[in-house]
């Protein structure tokens, strides 16, 4: 077993453990911390794949901005432990088998396919070709995302302001 395979299995185990912890925890703040563990493990996997710019964006935007927003809302609403209600029978008897079936179908389709192994490219060419693509072929979608962000900011302000002002 070579080194990169070992690192992959360690990071994959951390990511899956974080996701399972997200399901099992009762308090929202513990769920948020579990999700941060998953995101950091995924950033490590991106580094292993040689996508270091995506790894940095993952840490800064997901681990930093989005999760801070989540923790801030949990704090603002003073969210306590979630109450156990008698959840619907459909979720118990149809939902879990369906989720297992979806994951199993995807995994079976992947296992039968033959793909070239993920090759970590050299660090410089990866980010360079990424920026070339982003600012040449995908420049119009890239500009459109700025409008999307602007609309999202306005929407968030309109939604969150107090009524009557």
């Amino acid at each position, binding site marked *: 077993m070579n080194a990169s*395979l070992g690192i*992959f299995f360690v990071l*994959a185990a951390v990511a*899956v453990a974080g*996701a*399972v912890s*997200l*399901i099992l925890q009762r308090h*929202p703040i513990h*769920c*948020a911390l579990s*999700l941060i563990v998953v995101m950091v493990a995924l950033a490590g*996997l*991106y580094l292993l*794949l040689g*996508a270091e710019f*995506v790894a940095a*964006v*993952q840490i800064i*935007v*997901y681990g930093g901005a*989005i999760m801070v*927003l*989540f923790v801030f809302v949990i704090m603002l*609403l003073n*969210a306590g432990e*979630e*109450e*156990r*209600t008698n*959840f619907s029978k459909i*979720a118990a008897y149809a*939902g879990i088998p369906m*989720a297992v079936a*979806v*994951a199993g179908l*995807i995994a079976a389709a992947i296992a039968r*396919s033959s*793909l*070239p*192994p*993920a*090759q*970590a*490219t050299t660090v410089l060419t*990866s980010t360079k*070709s*990424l920026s*070339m*693509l*982003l600012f040449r072929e*995908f420049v119009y979608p890239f500009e459109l*995302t700025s409008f999307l*962000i602007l*609309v*999202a900011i306005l*929407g*968030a302000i309109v*939604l*969150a302001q107090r009524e009557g002002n």
Partner: protein
Amino acid sequence: MVPTNYYLILSAVLFGLGIVAFIFKRNIITIFMAIELMLNAVNLAFVAFSQAFGKSDGEVFVLFVILVAAAEAAVGLGIIILTARNRRSLNVERVNLLKL
């Protein structure tokens, strides 16, 4: 080197766990986190494919997914704050205004 299939299987497993969390959780904030987990699982598949075929297109899509997730988080959490203020609860089963 790590085979691409391993990354894709990990991505499928994380997506399945995201679906399970989405079904099981009752807290509206935690359900939102399950959606983020599923988006992350798809991002991993994008990057794995992009490296497997030696093209950067997949990584560009990952950047767009992260951008949309950021916008979604801003608007979604605004809606969550509004819902919590009106219903005085974060439990999704108490948000049943449209139920007959």
